Protein backbone atom coordinates (compact mmCIF):
# COMPACT_ATOMS: atom_id res chain seq x y z
CA UNK A 1 0.00 0.00 0.00
CA UNK A 2 1.26 3.45 -0.94
CA UNK A 3 0.13 7.04 -0.63
CA UNK A 4 2.06 8.95 -3.24
CA UNK A 5 1.91 11.19 -6.30
CA UNK A 6 1.79 9.52 -9.70
CA UNK A 7 1.74 10.99 -13.20
CA UNK A 8 -1.25 10.69 -15.53
CA UNK A 9 -0.03 9.15 -18.77
CA UNK A 10 -3.27 9.72 -20.65
CA UNK A 11 -6.90 10.56 -20.03
CA UNK A 12 -9.69 10.04 -22.58
CA UNK A 13 -13.46 10.34 -22.56
CA UNK A 14 -15.36 7.10 -23.27
CA UNK A 15 -18.94 8.42 -23.24
CA UNK A 16 -20.67 11.63 -22.08
CA UNK A 17 -20.00 10.87 -18.40
CA UNK A 18 -17.20 8.28 -18.34
CA UNK A 19 -13.45 8.73 -18.54
CA UNK A 20 -10.47 6.39 -18.78
CA UNK A 21 -7.20 7.38 -17.18
CA UNK A 22 -3.82 5.62 -17.39
CA UNK A 23 -1.61 6.18 -14.37
CA UNK A 24 2.15 5.77 -14.36
CA UNK A 25 2.67 4.03 -10.99
CA UNK A 26 5.03 1.04 -11.18
CA UNK A 27 5.11 0.27 -7.42
CA UNK A 28 1.34 0.46 -7.18
CA UNK A 29 0.78 -1.58 -10.35
CA UNK A 30 3.08 -4.22 -8.94
CA UNK A 31 0.79 -4.77 -5.92
CA UNK A 32 -2.41 -4.59 -7.95
CA UNK A 33 -4.70 -7.35 -9.12
CA UNK A 34 -8.19 -7.38 -10.52
CA UNK A 35 -10.99 -6.08 -8.32
CA UNK A 36 -8.78 -3.95 -6.09
CA UNK A 37 -9.20 -0.17 -6.00
CA UNK A 38 -7.37 3.08 -5.33
CA UNK A 39 -8.48 6.12 -3.32
CA UNK A 40 -7.75 9.38 -5.15
CA UNK A 41 -7.45 12.85 -3.66
CA UNK A 42 -9.60 15.22 -5.73
CA UNK A 43 -8.52 18.84 -5.31
CA UNK A 44 -9.71 20.37 -2.05
CA UNK A 45 -12.25 17.66 -1.23
CA UNK A 46 -11.98 16.20 2.29
CA UNK A 47 -12.70 12.66 1.13
CA UNK A 48 -10.73 10.77 -1.49
CA UNK A 49 -12.71 9.10 -4.27
CA UNK A 50 -12.50 5.29 -4.45
CA UNK A 51 -12.06 4.10 -8.05
CA UNK A 52 -11.70 0.45 -8.99
CA UNK A 53 -8.72 -0.64 -11.05
CA UNK A 54 -9.74 -1.66 -14.54
CA UNK A 55 -6.60 -2.87 -16.32
CA UNK A 56 -3.13 -3.58 -14.94
CA UNK A 57 0.04 -3.50 -17.02
CA UNK A 58 2.88 -4.60 -14.75
CA UNK A 59 5.43 -4.64 -17.58
CA UNK A 60 4.88 -0.95 -18.26
CA UNK A 61 4.10 -0.06 -14.64
CA UNK A 62 0.65 1.37 -15.31
CA UNK A 63 -2.92 0.89 -14.19
CA UNK A 64 -6.06 2.05 -16.01
CA UNK A 65 -8.89 3.64 -14.06
CA UNK A 66 -12.31 4.09 -15.63
CA UNK A 67 -14.62 6.38 -13.71
CA UNK A 68 -17.97 8.10 -14.06
CA UNK A 69 -18.50 11.78 -13.24
CA UNK A 70 -21.00 11.76 -10.39
CA UNK A 71 -20.20 14.89 -8.42
CA UNK A 72 -17.63 17.56 -7.66
CA UNK A 73 -14.80 15.13 -6.90
CA UNK A 74 -15.04 13.11 -10.09
CA UNK A 75 -15.70 16.33 -12.04
CA UNK A 76 -12.33 17.60 -10.80
CA UNK A 77 -10.73 14.29 -11.76
CA UNK A 78 -12.19 14.41 -15.28
CA UNK A 79 -10.64 17.86 -15.77
CA UNK A 80 -7.06 16.56 -15.27
CA UNK A 81 -4.66 16.29 -18.18
CA UNK A 82 -1.87 13.96 -19.26
CA UNK A 83 1.25 14.91 -17.33
CA UNK A 84 -0.64 16.04 -14.19
CA UNK A 85 0.19 14.35 -10.89
CA UNK A 86 -2.46 12.56 -8.83
CA UNK A 87 -2.26 11.85 -5.09
CA UNK A 88 -3.26 8.18 -4.91
CA UNK A 89 -3.69 5.81 -1.94
CA UNK A 90 -3.61 2.13 -2.85
CA UNK A 91 -3.92 -0.51 -4.01
CA UNK A 92 -6.73 -1.33 -1.58
CA UNK A 93 -9.27 -4.09 -0.93
CA UNK A 94 -9.28 -7.83 -1.49
CA UNK A 95 -10.19 -8.08 -5.20
CA UNK A 96 -11.22 -11.04 -7.34
CA UNK A 97 -9.38 -14.35 -7.52
CA UNK A 98 -10.82 -16.06 -10.62
CA UNK A 99 -10.16 -19.79 -10.63
CA UNK A 100 -8.58 -20.62 -14.02
CA UNK A 101 -9.74 -24.25 -13.79
CA UNK A 102 -13.43 -23.38 -13.64
CA UNK A 103 -15.71 -21.94 -16.28
CA UNK A 104 -16.22 -18.26 -15.43
CA UNK A 105 -18.88 -15.69 -16.29
CA UNK A 106 -18.01 -12.02 -15.75
CA UNK A 107 -20.94 -9.64 -15.36
CA UNK A 108 -20.67 -5.86 -15.42
CA UNK A 109 -23.44 -3.30 -15.13
CA UNK A 110 -22.62 0.23 -16.33
CA UNK A 111 -19.69 1.64 -14.40
CA UNK A 112 -19.37 -1.85 -12.85
CA UNK A 113 -17.86 -3.04 -16.16
CA UNK A 114 -14.29 -1.67 -15.70
CA UNK A 115 -13.21 -3.95 -12.80
CA UNK A 116 -14.72 -6.94 -14.64
CA UNK A 117 -12.51 -6.20 -17.66
CA UNK A 118 -9.38 -6.65 -15.54
CA UNK A 119 -10.85 -9.81 -14.03
CA UNK A 120 -11.65 -11.27 -17.45
CA UNK A 121 -8.18 -10.40 -18.74
CA UNK A 122 -6.57 -12.07 -15.73
CA UNK A 123 -8.74 -15.17 -16.13
CA UNK A 124 -7.85 -15.74 -19.79
CA UNK A 125 -9.29 -16.51 -23.21
CA UNK A 126 -12.23 -18.67 -22.07
CA UNK A 127 -13.90 -15.84 -20.19
CA UNK A 128 -17.58 -15.25 -20.89
CA UNK A 129 -18.87 -11.73 -20.34
CA UNK A 130 -22.32 -10.21 -19.91
CA UNK A 131 -22.40 -6.43 -19.97
CA UNK A 132 -25.48 -4.38 -19.13
CA UNK A 133 -26.12 -0.70 -19.93
CA UNK A 134 -29.08 1.66 -19.79
CA UNK A 135 -28.75 2.32 -23.53
CA UNK A 136 -26.24 2.11 -26.40
CA UNK A 137 -25.06 5.66 -25.61
CA UNK A 138 -23.71 4.53 -22.23
CA UNK A 139 -21.81 1.54 -23.59
CA UNK A 140 -18.12 1.35 -22.62
CA UNK A 141 -15.19 -1.04 -23.10
CA UNK A 142 -17.03 -3.39 -25.47
CA UNK A 143 -14.04 -3.82 -27.84
CA UNK A 144 -11.72 -4.46 -24.91
CA UNK A 145 -13.99 -7.22 -23.61
CA UNK A 146 -14.22 -8.71 -27.12
CA UNK A 147 -10.39 -8.76 -27.28
CA UNK A 148 -10.03 -10.93 -24.17
CA UNK A 149 -13.25 -12.96 -23.93
CA UNK A 150 -14.59 -16.03 -25.67
CA UNK A 151 -18.06 -14.50 -25.75
CA UNK A 152 -19.54 -11.10 -24.91
CA UNK A 153 -23.28 -10.54 -24.54
CA UNK A 154 -24.64 -7.00 -24.19
CA UNK A 155 -28.00 -6.01 -22.74
CA UNK A 156 -29.57 -2.54 -22.78
CA UNK A 157 -32.63 -1.53 -20.81
CA UNK A 158 -34.12 0.22 -23.86
CA UNK A 159 -33.05 -2.34 -26.45
CA UNK A 160 -30.90 0.18 -28.35
CA UNK A 161 -28.09 -2.41 -28.51
CA UNK A 162 -27.89 -6.14 -27.97
CA UNK A 163 -30.57 -7.89 -25.94
CA UNK A 164 -33.36 -5.70 -24.57
CA UNK A 165 -33.54 -6.29 -20.86
CA UNK A 166 -31.17 -7.02 -18.00
CA UNK A 167 -27.98 -9.02 -17.53
CA UNK A 168 -29.99 -11.55 -15.53
CA UNK A 169 -32.03 -12.38 -18.66
CA UNK A 170 -28.85 -13.55 -20.42
CA UNK A 171 -27.48 -15.16 -17.27
CA UNK A 172 -30.66 -17.20 -16.88
CA UNK A 173 -30.25 -18.68 -20.38
CA UNK A 174 -26.60 -19.41 -19.72
CA UNK A 175 -27.19 -21.13 -16.39
CA UNK A 176 -30.18 -23.15 -17.54
CA UNK A 177 -27.98 -24.48 -20.34
CA UNK A 178 -24.98 -25.20 -18.12
CA UNK A 179 -24.69 -24.16 -14.52
CA UNK A 180 -21.20 -25.56 -13.95
CA UNK A 181 -19.43 -22.20 -13.57
CA UNK A 182 -18.45 -19.37 -11.22
CA UNK A 183 -19.99 -15.93 -11.60
CA UNK A 184 -18.17 -12.66 -10.86
CA UNK A 185 -20.16 -9.44 -10.91
CA UNK A 186 -19.98 -5.69 -10.33
CA UNK A 187 -22.71 -3.12 -10.86
CA UNK A 188 -25.64 -1.40 -9.18
CA UNK A 189 -27.06 -3.07 -6.05
CA UNK A 190 -30.39 -4.16 -7.63
CA UNK A 191 -28.44 -5.87 -10.44
CA UNK A 192 -26.10 -7.59 -7.98
CA UNK A 193 -29.06 -8.77 -5.91
CA UNK A 194 -30.69 -10.15 -9.06
CA UNK A 195 -27.49 -11.92 -10.10
CA UNK A 196 -26.94 -13.29 -6.59
CA UNK A 197 -30.52 -14.59 -6.36
CA UNK A 198 -30.24 -16.30 -9.74
CA UNK A 199 -26.91 -17.90 -8.86
CA UNK A 200 -28.36 -19.16 -5.58
CA UNK A 201 -31.29 -20.65 -7.49
CA UNK A 202 -28.92 -22.58 -9.80
CA UNK A 203 -26.45 -23.44 -7.02
CA UNK A 204 -23.71 -21.40 -8.66
CA UNK A 205 -20.85 -19.82 -6.70
CA UNK A 206 -21.02 -16.02 -7.10
CA UNK A 207 -18.71 -13.20 -6.07
CA UNK A 208 -19.90 -9.59 -6.11
CA UNK A 209 -17.96 -6.35 -5.89
CA UNK A 210 -19.85 -3.80 -3.79
CA UNK A 211 -19.86 -0.04 -3.70
CA UNK A 212 -20.44 2.05 -0.57
CA UNK A 213 -19.65 5.59 0.60
CA UNK A 214 -16.17 5.42 2.08
CA UNK A 215 -14.03 7.35 4.52
CA UNK A 216 -10.43 6.24 5.02
CA UNK A 217 -10.54 3.44 2.42
CA UNK A 218 -8.19 1.24 4.47
CA UNK A 219 -10.35 -0.22 7.24
CA UNK A 220 -9.79 2.24 10.07
CA UNK A 221 -12.95 4.37 10.17
CA UNK A 222 -15.65 1.70 9.72
CA UNK A 223 -18.06 3.83 7.68
CA UNK A 224 -18.46 1.67 4.54
CA UNK A 225 -20.48 -1.00 6.32
CA UNK A 226 -21.92 -4.10 4.67
CA UNK A 227 -24.05 -6.55 6.63
CA UNK A 228 -23.21 -10.22 6.05
CA UNK A 229 -24.72 -13.51 7.18
CA UNK A 230 -21.86 -15.94 7.71
CA UNK A 231 -21.58 -19.42 9.18
CA UNK A 232 -20.93 -17.97 12.65
CA UNK A 233 -23.66 -15.33 12.49
CA UNK A 234 -24.34 -11.76 11.42
CA UNK A 235 -21.43 -9.41 10.89
CA UNK A 236 -20.99 -5.79 9.93
CA UNK A 237 -18.11 -6.01 7.45
CA UNK A 238 -16.46 -3.16 5.61
CA UNK A 239 -16.35 -2.75 1.84
CA UNK A 240 -12.88 -1.19 1.78
CA UNK A 241 -11.09 -3.83 3.84
CA UNK A 242 -13.17 -7.04 3.90
CA UNK A 243 -14.28 -6.31 0.32
CA UNK A 244 -15.05 -4.82 -2.09
CA UNK A 245 -15.50 -8.42 -3.28
CA UNK A 246 -17.80 -10.62 -1.18
CA UNK A 247 -19.22 -14.10 -1.50
CA UNK A 248 -22.72 -13.20 -2.75
CA UNK A 249 -24.49 -15.74 -0.54
CA UNK A 250 -23.16 -13.99 2.57
CA UNK A 251 -24.22 -10.46 1.59
CA UNK A 252 -27.38 -9.08 3.18
CA UNK A 253 -28.51 -6.97 0.20
CA UNK A 254 -31.30 -5.41 2.22
CA UNK A 255 -29.14 -4.69 5.29
Amino acid at each position, binding site marked *: *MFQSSYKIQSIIQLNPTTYSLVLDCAELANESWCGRFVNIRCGEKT*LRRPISISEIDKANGTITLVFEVRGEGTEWLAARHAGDELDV*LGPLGNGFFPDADKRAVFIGGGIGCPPMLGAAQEYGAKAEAILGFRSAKQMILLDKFKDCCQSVAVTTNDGSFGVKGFVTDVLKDKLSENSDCVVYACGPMPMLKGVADMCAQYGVQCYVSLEQ*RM*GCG*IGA*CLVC*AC*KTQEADGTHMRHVCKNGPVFDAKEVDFDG
Partner: protein
Amino acid sequence: MADLHVNIAGVDFKNPVITASGTFGFGQEYARLYDISRLGGISCKGTTLEPRMGNPAPRIAETPSGILNSVGLQNPGVEGFLQHDLPLLENTDTVIIANIAGSQVEDYVETVRRLQDAPIDMIEMNISCPNVKEGGVSFGTLPKSVENITKRVKAVAKQPLIVKLTPNVTDIAEIAAAAEAGGADAISLINTLTGMKIDIHTRRPILKNNTGGMSGAAVFPVALRMVWQATNRVHIPVIGLGGITKWQDAVEMLLAGATAVQIGTANFTDAYTPLKVIDGLNSYLDAHGEKSVTDIVGKVQPW
Protein backbone atom coordinates in the same frame (compact mmCIF):
# COMPACT_ATOMS: atom_id res chain seq x y z
CA MET B 1 15.15 20.88 17.45
CA ALA B 2 12.67 22.03 20.07
CA ASP B 3 11.51 19.81 22.92
CA LEU B 4 8.13 18.46 21.85
CA HIS B 5 7.39 16.51 25.05
CA VAL B 6 4.21 17.31 26.93
CA ASN B 7 2.87 15.91 30.18
CA ILE B 8 -0.81 15.30 30.75
CA ALA B 9 -1.90 14.04 34.17
CA GLY B 10 1.51 12.48 34.77
CA VAL B 11 1.63 10.75 31.39
CA ASP B 12 4.58 11.70 29.18
CA PHE B 13 3.91 12.22 25.46
CA LYS B 14 6.91 12.40 23.09
CA ASN B 15 5.00 15.03 21.14
CA PRO B 16 1.56 16.63 21.45
CA VAL B 17 0.03 14.95 18.38
CA ILE B 18 -2.53 12.21 19.05
CA THR B 19 -4.73 10.46 16.50
CA ALA B 20 -8.42 10.89 17.26
CA SER B 21 -10.74 8.06 18.26
CA GLY B 22 -12.80 6.49 15.49
CA THR B 23 -10.61 7.71 12.65
CA PHE B 24 -7.56 5.56 13.24
CA GLY B 25 -8.87 2.16 14.37
CA PHE B 26 -6.11 0.61 16.44
CA GLY B 27 -3.41 2.02 14.21
CA GLN B 28 -2.76 -1.17 12.26
CA GLU B 29 -3.96 0.16 8.90
CA TYR B 30 -1.89 3.33 9.11
CA ALA B 31 1.10 1.30 10.38
CA ARG B 32 1.33 -0.03 6.80
CA LEU B 33 2.23 3.51 5.70
CA TYR B 34 4.45 4.77 8.55
CA ASP B 35 5.86 3.98 11.98
CA ILE B 36 2.99 4.82 14.34
CA SER B 37 5.45 4.96 17.25
CA ARG B 38 6.28 8.43 15.95
CA LEU B 39 2.89 9.64 17.18
CA GLY B 40 2.50 11.28 20.56
CA GLY B 41 -0.47 9.04 21.25
CA ILE B 42 -3.29 6.98 19.80
CA SER B 43 -6.86 7.28 21.01
CA CYS B 44 -8.35 3.90 20.14
CA LYS B 45 -11.72 3.28 18.47
CA GLY B 46 -14.52 3.73 21.02
CA THR B 47 -15.35 0.72 23.14
CA THR B 48 -18.63 -0.12 24.84
CA LEU B 49 -19.41 -2.77 27.45
CA GLU B 50 -21.16 -5.04 24.94
CA PRO B 51 -20.38 -5.46 21.22
CA ARG B 52 -22.25 -3.07 18.92
CA MET B 53 -23.07 -3.50 15.20
CA GLY B 54 -23.36 0.22 14.60
CA ASN B 55 -25.79 1.98 12.27
CA PRO B 56 -26.77 0.86 8.75
CA ALA B 57 -24.88 2.36 5.77
CA PRO B 58 -24.49 4.94 4.35
CA ARG B 59 -22.62 6.17 7.38
CA ILE B 60 -20.76 9.05 5.76
CA ALA B 61 -21.55 12.11 3.67
CA GLU B 62 -19.27 14.84 2.41
CA THR B 63 -20.07 18.46 3.25
CA PRO B 64 -18.20 21.69 2.43
CA SER B 65 -14.68 21.25 3.89
CA GLY B 66 -15.83 18.38 6.05
CA ILE B 67 -17.87 15.25 6.52
CA LEU B 68 -20.80 13.87 8.47
CA ASN B 69 -20.54 10.40 9.97
CA SER B 70 -23.01 8.11 11.69
CA VAL B 71 -20.98 4.99 12.46
CA GLY B 72 -22.87 4.49 15.71
CA LEU B 73 -20.02 3.11 17.81
CA GLN B 74 -19.53 -0.20 15.98
CA ASN B 75 -17.09 -2.12 18.17
CA PRO B 76 -16.44 -5.63 19.52
CA GLY B 77 -17.16 -4.69 23.16
CA VAL B 78 -14.66 -4.27 25.96
CA GLU B 79 -13.75 -7.97 26.08
CA GLY B 80 -13.07 -8.00 22.31
CA PHE B 81 -11.03 -4.85 22.75
CA LEU B 82 -8.92 -6.45 25.48
CA GLN B 83 -8.47 -9.80 23.74
CA HIS B 84 -8.05 -8.83 20.09
CA ASP B 85 -7.52 -5.11 19.53
CA LEU B 86 -5.33 -3.88 22.37
CA PRO B 87 -2.67 -6.63 21.91
CA LEU B 88 -2.07 -5.27 18.38
CA LEU B 89 -0.53 -2.19 20.00
CA GLU B 90 1.67 -4.14 22.42
CA ASN B 91 4.96 -3.15 20.78
CA THR B 92 3.98 0.38 19.80
CA ASP B 93 6.02 3.00 21.64
CA THR B 94 3.35 5.67 22.05
CA VAL B 95 0.72 6.69 24.59
CA ILE B 96 -2.26 4.34 24.29
CA ILE B 97 -5.61 5.85 25.18
CA ALA B 98 -8.68 3.63 25.49
CA ASN B 99 -11.82 5.49 24.42
CA ILE B 100 -15.02 4.37 26.10
CA ALA B 101 -18.72 5.05 25.54
CA GLY B 102 -22.01 3.76 26.87
CA SER B 103 -25.71 4.35 27.21
CA GLN B 104 -25.97 4.43 30.99
CA VAL B 105 -23.66 5.36 33.85
CA GLU B 106 -23.39 1.74 35.00
CA ASP B 107 -22.08 0.70 31.55
CA TYR B 108 -19.29 3.26 31.73
CA VAL B 109 -18.36 2.22 35.26
CA GLU B 110 -18.28 -1.47 34.37
CA THR B 111 -16.30 -0.87 31.17
CA VAL B 112 -13.69 1.15 33.06
CA ARG B 113 -13.56 -1.46 35.83
CA ARG B 114 -12.64 -4.09 33.20
CA LEU B 115 -9.86 -1.83 31.95
CA GLN B 116 -8.26 -1.54 35.38
CA ASP B 117 -5.41 -3.95 34.67
CA ALA B 118 -5.20 -3.33 30.91
CA PRO B 119 -1.95 -2.08 29.37
CA ILE B 120 -3.35 1.35 28.54
CA ASP B 121 -1.93 4.71 29.61
CA MET B 122 -5.12 6.72 29.81
CA ILE B 123 -8.89 6.52 29.42
CA GLU B 124 -10.87 8.94 27.30
CA MET B 125 -14.54 8.95 28.26
CA ASN B 126 -16.83 9.84 25.37
CA ILE B 127 -19.94 11.51 26.76
CA SER B 128 -20.59 13.12 23.44
CA CYS B 129 -21.46 10.63 20.71
CA PRO B 130 -24.32 12.08 18.66
CA ASN B 131 -25.00 8.91 16.67
CA VAL B 132 -26.44 6.57 19.27
CA LYS B 133 -29.74 6.88 21.07
CA GLU B 134 -28.79 7.90 24.61
CA GLY B 135 -25.25 7.38 23.26
CA GLY B 136 -23.42 9.51 25.70
CA VAL B 137 -24.42 12.87 24.32
CA SER B 138 -27.24 13.15 26.84
CA PHE B 139 -24.69 12.88 29.65
CA GLY B 140 -22.57 15.51 28.01
CA THR B 141 -25.03 18.37 27.76
CA LEU B 142 -26.02 18.91 31.39
CA PRO B 143 -23.36 20.09 33.87
CA LYS B 144 -24.83 18.04 36.73
CA SER B 145 -24.77 14.78 34.78
CA VAL B 146 -21.26 15.50 33.47
CA GLU B 147 -20.02 15.95 37.00
CA ASN B 148 -21.89 12.87 38.21
CA ILE B 149 -20.68 10.45 35.53
CA THR B 150 -17.13 11.79 35.81
CA LYS B 151 -17.17 11.21 39.56
CA ARG B 152 -18.55 7.67 39.20
CA VAL B 153 -16.06 6.66 36.52
CA LYS B 154 -13.10 8.36 38.19
CA ALA B 155 -13.81 6.29 41.32
CA VAL B 156 -13.03 3.03 39.49
CA ALA B 157 -10.47 4.26 36.91
CA LYS B 158 -6.89 3.20 37.59
CA GLN B 159 -5.53 5.25 34.69
CA PRO B 160 -5.82 9.03 34.30
CA LEU B 161 -9.24 10.05 32.99
CA ILE B 162 -9.84 12.38 30.04
CA VAL B 163 -13.45 13.49 29.54
CA LYS B 164 -14.33 14.15 25.88
CA LEU B 165 -16.86 16.93 25.54
CA THR B 166 -19.59 17.60 23.01
CA PRO B 167 -19.79 20.99 21.30
CA ASN B 168 -23.59 20.70 21.08
CA VAL B 169 -24.08 22.79 24.22
CA THR B 170 -24.84 26.41 25.07
CA ASP B 171 -21.92 27.06 27.41
CA ILE B 172 -18.84 24.87 26.92
CA ALA B 173 -16.95 26.47 29.84
CA GLU B 174 -19.67 25.40 32.23
CA ILE B 175 -19.47 21.80 30.97
CA ALA B 176 -15.67 21.83 31.20
CA ALA B 177 -15.91 23.09 34.79
CA ALA B 178 -18.36 20.29 35.62
CA ALA B 179 -15.92 17.66 34.31
CA GLU B 180 -13.16 19.22 36.42
CA ALA B 181 -15.43 19.28 39.47
CA GLY B 182 -16.16 15.58 38.92
CA GLY B 183 -12.45 14.80 39.09
CA ALA B 184 -11.40 14.59 35.43
CA ASP B 185 -7.63 14.60 34.99
CA ALA B 186 -7.98 16.27 31.58
CA ILE B 187 -10.62 17.14 29.02
CA SER B 188 -10.64 16.78 25.26
CA LEU B 189 -12.84 18.74 22.88
CA ILE B 190 -14.60 18.95 20.53
CA ASN B 191 -16.47 15.87 19.46
CA THR B 192 -18.58 16.30 16.29
CA LEU B 193 -21.30 18.87 15.72
CA THR B 194 -24.66 17.34 14.84
CA GLY B 195 -25.49 17.94 11.18
CA MET B 196 -27.48 16.71 8.19
CA LYS B 197 -27.30 16.43 4.39
CA ILE B 198 -30.14 15.72 1.97
CA ASP B 199 -29.93 14.26 -1.55
CA ILE B 200 -32.13 16.67 -3.51
CA HIS B 201 -32.90 14.08 -6.20
CA THR B 202 -34.10 11.28 -3.93
CA ARG B 203 -35.22 13.76 -1.22
CA ARG B 204 -33.70 11.45 1.36
CA PRO B 205 -30.93 12.20 3.86
CA ILE B 206 -27.61 10.77 2.63
CA LEU B 207 -27.05 9.17 6.04
CA LYS B 208 -29.30 6.22 6.86
CA ASN B 209 -29.29 7.60 10.41
CA ASN B 210 -30.69 10.88 8.99
CA THR B 211 -28.30 12.98 11.07
CA GLY B 212 -24.62 12.57 11.89
CA GLY B 213 -21.59 14.16 13.44
CA MET B 214 -19.84 16.87 11.46
CA SER B 215 -16.05 17.08 11.45
CA GLY B 216 -13.21 18.30 9.25
CA ALA B 217 -11.74 21.70 8.45
CA ALA B 218 -15.13 23.42 8.53
CA VAL B 219 -15.47 22.93 12.31
CA PHE B 220 -11.98 24.17 13.24
CA PRO B 221 -12.90 27.78 14.17
CA VAL B 222 -15.70 26.49 16.41
CA ALA B 223 -13.35 23.99 18.05
CA LEU B 224 -10.68 26.63 18.59
CA ARG B 225 -13.14 29.00 20.21
CA MET B 226 -14.41 26.28 22.54
CA VAL B 227 -10.90 25.16 23.51
CA TRP B 228 -10.02 28.76 24.31
CA GLN B 229 -13.16 29.22 26.45
CA ALA B 230 -12.61 25.91 28.24
CA THR B 231 -8.94 26.54 29.05
CA ASN B 232 -9.84 29.95 30.43
CA ARG B 233 -12.15 28.25 32.89
CA VAL B 234 -10.45 25.06 34.09
CA HIS B 235 -7.04 24.22 35.59
CA ILE B 236 -6.71 20.71 34.16
CA PRO B 237 -4.99 20.10 30.79
CA VAL B 238 -7.09 20.45 27.67
CA ILE B 239 -6.61 18.39 24.50
CA GLY B 240 -7.80 20.30 21.44
CA LEU B 241 -9.38 18.63 18.42
CA GLY B 242 -11.85 19.37 15.67
CA GLY B 243 -10.89 20.15 12.10
CA ILE B 244 -7.10 20.27 12.44
CA THR B 245 -5.72 19.60 8.96
CA LYS B 246 -2.26 21.21 9.11
CA TRP B 247 0.48 22.22 11.54
CA GLN B 248 -0.65 25.84 11.57
CA ASP B 249 -4.01 24.68 13.01
CA ALA B 250 -2.17 22.77 15.73
CA VAL B 251 -0.16 25.89 16.62
CA GLU B 252 -3.40 27.86 16.91
CA MET B 253 -4.85 25.19 19.22
CA LEU B 254 -1.78 25.28 21.46
CA LEU B 255 -1.79 29.10 21.54
CA ALA B 256 -5.48 28.96 22.50
CA GLY B 257 -4.52 26.84 25.50
CA ALA B 258 -4.50 23.19 24.44
CA THR B 259 -1.62 21.11 25.85
CA ALA B 260 -1.94 18.57 23.03
CA VAL B 261 -4.02 18.08 19.89
CA GLN B 262 -5.84 15.23 18.19
CA ILE B 263 -6.10 14.66 14.47
CA GLY B 264 -9.08 12.80 13.04
CA THR B 265 -10.80 13.48 9.73
CA ALA B 266 -7.59 14.83 8.15
CA ASN B 267 -6.20 11.27 8.25
CA PHE B 268 -8.69 10.38 5.50
CA THR B 269 -7.54 13.21 3.24
CA ASP B 270 -3.82 12.69 3.82
CA ALA B 271 -2.69 9.71 5.90
CA TYR B 272 0.57 11.48 6.71
CA THR B 273 -1.13 14.51 8.33
CA PRO B 274 -0.06 13.67 11.93
CA LEU B 275 3.61 13.38 10.91
CA LYS B 276 3.42 16.62 8.90
CA VAL B 277 1.92 18.36 11.94
CA ILE B 278 4.72 17.08 14.20
CA ASP B 279 7.40 18.26 11.75
CA GLY B 280 5.71 21.61 11.11
CA LEU B 281 5.30 22.24 14.84
CA ASN B 282 8.98 21.59 15.37
CA SER B 283 9.99 24.00 12.58
CA TYR B 284 7.65 26.67 13.89
CA LEU B 285 9.13 26.43 17.41
CA ASP B 286 12.69 26.60 16.03
CA ALA B 287 11.85 29.56 13.81
CA HIS B 288 10.39 31.42 16.80
CA GLY B 289 13.25 30.53 19.15
CA GLU B 290 11.00 28.49 21.44
CA LYS B 291 12.83 25.75 23.37
CA SER B 292 9.77 23.72 24.28
CA VAL B 293 6.32 23.24 22.86
CA THR B 294 4.90 23.87 26.34
CA ASP B 295 6.19 27.45 26.10
CA ILE B 296 3.51 28.38 23.58
CA VAL B 297 0.55 26.75 25.33
CA GLY B 298 -2.06 29.43 26.07
CA LYS B 299 0.13 32.20 24.73
CA VAL B 300 -2.55 33.81 22.59
CA GLN B 301 -2.84 37.50 23.46
CA PRO B 302 -6.53 38.28 23.26
CA TRP B 303 -7.63 41.83 22.54
